[in-house]
């Protein structure tokens, strides 16, 4: 069985080919072709297949992570989309939740809604919180809305009526009428996209789904067409934000679920690396060009959140648009190689502003004028100016120094080296704050976790980050530069459904609870049929529960099987155990209610767990910079010292390196601090024991 995973990012498209029979894993990386994404894909496929000496027809499965949906949202370049909502509530999407993302700034703007007010129409109807109909859907108002939709020449329509999660009848009727009147228009309805209460979040999620639908349709059609013409007969699967794969048909129906496609695959890779190394608690640290993304794997499972914000600023709540979509939990902050450093009122500030990949840091020599984290890392000697991306790109240390001197050092009365160190340190302390949120603030003791660091800049900062948080081990995996693509190889197919039903968890409600889970099962049935992989289905179910009167719920896993008379008691006990874990105490005796109910179906078989990155060993292909040492800045050793430069691919399993050292590979450099020890494991990963500090 030959599989190819490919991850299209903003700058690069990454490829990994896995041949289970020959036990070979190959990687590739080529620049993304933004205008015609499939061009780079085909080019990359050609190259990797040529290297492996097989024809396209031999490839059984293609696994894909894409930023196509995300980019449409970030750039507000989605479909021409309209929203139909309940009369009197036209402005739900415009009003939002209204909180400023920075209390101390009264001059900021709200995140721009995906569509303008002129594209929002109303229909006269009303359903109450319990699902009863207060006012039927008025035919005349629907006809008026349809006339407006026709006149507006829309590609996609979202329908979000109040309390539609409790009774979808009006949304269903409106959809039927719109589809009949406007053939070819893609209609998304809130009770299918996100059957959860809280109207703003549900409406926004539904609008986002409509907004990217045709874009994803067109993209996938072009891609499959191009692949078919090239002779591929493989089945294609798309990564969702929840870390599970689905067929293109499902991704097209609910494209909002693939917004965090690439980052989710990255966390899966970390989980797989943890499994290989026997570490089931992992903090994930992905630092790229514009942001750093931090996540967690608990007991081998990536942490999942039911809602997240897209297009936010520096992980500040309310700065982005909320999506009710299960997603791998990630904290994202504006700290990447391209993040800009400034002297601001006597202090050094780094990010969230970024020079991105273009023009990029000053040292890229592409017109960047503002000093960045990468410029600082170059000045500090962590990067080799002649061996960036394996020498494919030359860096200019002189202009990096000059930029840091003029814009950071001089205004603050520092030397250039000191200022560069300051930029590096401040970036670390920003990431430390984010990592504290992921770890300590969410009940994870960093001393029990290992950190998996990847992305171009992750390995440069990982060891220091680990030190300040007390993380004992850092792993820089093989193929860290194509982390998300490797993660795809380890993924399963997964269907995730949930619904809001506010129910007291008590014995009298057993019939209600049974019908809720029956409903959820019915909702998964068509999706499972579509996936039809033949693999065994693994089920999980549960509810988000709270003490009656509280405002926040916690996730509680509930037992499978027959829902018997004691199910409510079992559920309450499970809730109280979970509550105690989070808050340290439980208020036994108080009434417990469930808000959202969920069901997850995972189908093994796509991602062979047997596919390990071990098979990559010896395929690095890079020859190393040929240097043996370089001056680099380690303040604990007294400043600039001679640090050993080690070619990662030349290291044999078990061979040890003591810091200070710089361990180089094509896509990144690992900074090893004085006192720390690194070695390559049997599986080929670079493992650092944090001993110093």
């Amino acid at each position, binding site marked *: 069985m030959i599989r190819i995973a490919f991850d299209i990012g903003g700058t690069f498209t990454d490829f990994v080919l896995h041949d289970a029979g020959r036990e070979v894993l190959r990687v590739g990386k080529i620049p993304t072709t933004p205008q015609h994404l499939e061009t780079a894909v085909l080019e990359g496929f050609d190259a990797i297949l040529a290297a492996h000496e097989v024809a396209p027809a031999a490839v059984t499965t293609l696994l894909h992570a894409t930023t196509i949906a995300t980019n449409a949202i970030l750039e507000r370049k989605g479909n021409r989309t309209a929203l139909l909502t309940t009369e009197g509530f036209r402005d739900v999407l415009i009003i*939002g939740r209204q909180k400023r993302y920075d209390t101390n700034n009264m001059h900021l703007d709200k995140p721009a809604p995906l569509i303008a007010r002129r594209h929002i129409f109303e229909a006269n109807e009303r359903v109450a919180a319990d699902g009863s109909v207060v006012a039927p859907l008025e035919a005349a108002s629907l006809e008026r809305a349809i006339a407006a939709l026709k006149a507006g020449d829309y590609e996609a329509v979202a329908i979000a009526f109040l309390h539609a999660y409790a009774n979808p009848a009006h949304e269903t009727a409106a959809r039927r009428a719109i589809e009949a009147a406007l053939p070819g228009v893609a209609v998304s309805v809130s009770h299918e996209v996100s059957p959860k209460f809280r109207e703003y979040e549900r409406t926004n999620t539904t609008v986002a789904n409509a907004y990217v639908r045709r874009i994803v349709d067109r993209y996938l059609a072009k891609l499959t067409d191009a692949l078919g013409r090239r002779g591929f007969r493989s089945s294609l699967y798309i990564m969702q934000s929840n870390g599970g794969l689905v067929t293109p048909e499902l991704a097209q129906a609910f494209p909002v679920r693939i917004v965090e496609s690439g980052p989710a695959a990255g966390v899966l890779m970390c989980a797989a690396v943890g499994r290989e190394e026997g570490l089931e608690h992992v903090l994930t640290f992905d630092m790229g060009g514009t942001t750093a993304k931090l996540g967690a794997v608990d007991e081998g499972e990536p942490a999942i959140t039911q809602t997240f914000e897209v297009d936010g600023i520096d992980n500040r709540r309310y700065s982005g648009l909320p999506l009710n979509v299960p997603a791998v939990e990630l904290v994202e902050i504006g700290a990447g190689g391209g993040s800009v450093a400034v002297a601001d009122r006597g202090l050094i500030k780094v990010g969230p502003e970024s020079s991105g990949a273009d023009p990029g840091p000053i040292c890229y020599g592409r017109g960047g004028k503002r000093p960045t984290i990468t410029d600082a890392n170059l000045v500090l000697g962590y990067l080799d100016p002649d061996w960036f991306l394996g020498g494919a790109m030359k860096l200019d240390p002189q202009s990096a120094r000059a930029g840091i001197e003029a814009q950071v050092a001089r205004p603050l009365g520092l030397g250039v080296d000191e200022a560069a160190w300051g930029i590096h340190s401040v970036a670390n302390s920003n990431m430390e704050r984010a990592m504290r949120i992921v770890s300590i603030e969410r009940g994870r003791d960093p001393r029990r976790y290992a950190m998996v660091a990847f992305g171009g800049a992750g390995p440069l900062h990982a060891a220091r980050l680990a030190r300040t948080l007390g993380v004992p081990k850092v792993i820089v995996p093989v193929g860290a530069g194509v982390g998300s693509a490797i993660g795809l190889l380890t993924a399963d197919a997964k269907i995730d459904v949930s619904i809001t039903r506010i129910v007291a968890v008590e014995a009298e409600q057993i019939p209600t609870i049974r019908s809720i889970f029956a409903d959820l099962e019915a909702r998964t049935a068509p999706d499972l049929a579509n996936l039809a992989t033949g693999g065994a289905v693994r089920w999980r179910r549960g509810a988000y529960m709270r003490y009656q009167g509280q405002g926040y719920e916690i996730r509680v896993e509930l037992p499978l099987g027959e829902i018997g008379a004691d199910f409510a008691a079992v559920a309450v006990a499970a809730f109280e155990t979970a509550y105690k874990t989070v808050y340290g105490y439980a208020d036994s005796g108080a009434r417990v209610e469930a808000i959202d109910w969920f069901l997850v179906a995972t189908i093994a078989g796509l991602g062979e767990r047997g596919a390990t990155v071990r098979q990559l060993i010896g395929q690095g292909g890079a020859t190393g910079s040929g240097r043996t040492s370089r001056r680099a800045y380690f303040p604990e050793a007294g400043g600039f010292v001679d640090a050993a430069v080690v070619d990662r691919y030349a290291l044999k399993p078990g061979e040890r390196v003591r810091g200070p050292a710089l361990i180089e590979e094509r896509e990144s450099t690992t900074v090893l601090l004085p006192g720390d020890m690194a070695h390559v494991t049997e599986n080929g990963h670079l493992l650092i024991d944090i001993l110093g500090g």
Partner: protein
Amino acid sequence: MTRTTGDIDAITLSVLWNSLLSIAEEMGTALRRTAFSEAVREGDDFSTGIFDGRGRLIAQGNFTPGHLGAMPYVIENVLKFHTPESLKPGDAILLNDSFLGGGHFPDFFLTSPVFRDGRLIGYAVTTAHQVDMGGAAPGSQRVQGISEAYQEGLRILPIRIVREGRFDEDLMRMILGNVRVPTKVRGDLMAQLNANHVCAERLNRMYDAYGEDTMARTIDALLDRSERETRAIIAKLPPGRFEFEDYLDDSGPGTNPIKVKVAVTVGDGEVEIDFTGSGGTVQAALNSYINYTRAYGVFATRCLTQANLPNNEGSFRPIKVKAEEGSFFNPRFPAASGGRAAVQIRIFDAVNGAFAKCIPHRAMGAFSHWANPNIGGVDPKTGKPFIMYDMLLGGYGGRSDKDGVEAMSPVMNCSNIPVEVIEHTNPVRIERFELIPDSGGAGTYRGGCGIRKDVRVLADEAVLTLLGDRHKFAPYGVFGGGEAAKGQSIVYSGNEAKELGSKEVAVLKRDDVVSLRTSGAGGYGPASKRDPKRIEQDIADGYVTEEGARRVYGRAE
């Protein structure tokens, strides 16, 4: 870490400042996660602060400005009752007095001394808005008919409620015996103590890592630099005395408007905000105690002048706020003050109006005033009492280069409560929640629209308590920008419609509909200079009607 000699370098300063902020934020997370009340969990109505051993504010979390600005004065007051020498490890001091504290009884300030090897190195302070402190009405914020603080519930002068890390159960019993929701009050107090613990732990770890000498010099340097930078920013402002005058509607039906008069004096790197000449103390629970007046006066100044970093004593020093003793903005105890939150936006509006003459590019038209209504009664389905607590948040005034933001929380930072959540927990139906076209003040840059929410009562009887404003005095525009439409509160009962005052209390019957309509926000610059394209966009989006465009912008038919 970098070794330092003499002055603290910018790197150490930057990294330690980041760490202090992260402690203040982590305190906030601990408090939010373990709190019981909706105000804390949903409304983020709490704050955190770190003080040094000398009682100087070093850092705060990004939370409620009213608490943050009051905190330094509260600590000063606490230390007058409990001298630093008398404090022991594991102590915590509680206070909620409206004069010594945050301006009304629901604000609980809990101060824990932080010790290291037996020596006092600082204080951890948290503030949380408790949902009830007893008194005349649930929530302890009723305005009408409250003439002195003793009607507003339990008053706590600084007491040592925690010793050796444990709550004094006698004091606790006394407090909980006086409030309507003892479980929530106890839960929130415990959450405050948790947060203070987090601060003590992490501050000690910072001292371990950097040493006392570096920490002491860093704190001095931080405060000095913050003060220096703040003064430098203020020094660049045009000096002078800038005045502004406006009126609050009243303090309840049948009462007089309250004058809001402010003089802003800029010069010598300092700003003075002087409310002299404003109205006197009122016989209703609306008075703004000096700590509250100061908090929002300073907040407005820092936002407008951009002297808003970092939040510590140094940056507070150059900004002074004063008001005559015995006046509305500086009442003497026992003036009633439960509903003083209705005033915060107006403090900002007044300071903004004065600064408009000094820094026109930073000023804005006046805000939509918020509405903070309560509807309470008995839920016919459960037979139990309900309180529908709501916040209507309108638009921002026009700015020097942009229209005002639509529908964003002004000044104090809250989120709205979703319609679907309100309807799940209260016997009401929301019939409308939308922007009001043509309500924003016209201008080169238009003010945001007002917001309307119509609520149908589904209980047999309910009491409506309004806490709003701008029903009589419209939000102003600046530099020729138009004023906004005024707010209205209307009760529809059968075929009758009755307008209510902005702070009125009314009894509603089943199927009555109360229509709450906030004012719009003021415009910036003359309407005649508005880009015609913007007018057409507004009409397309329905923020302005064609008729409205003809009226205020002179658009041709």
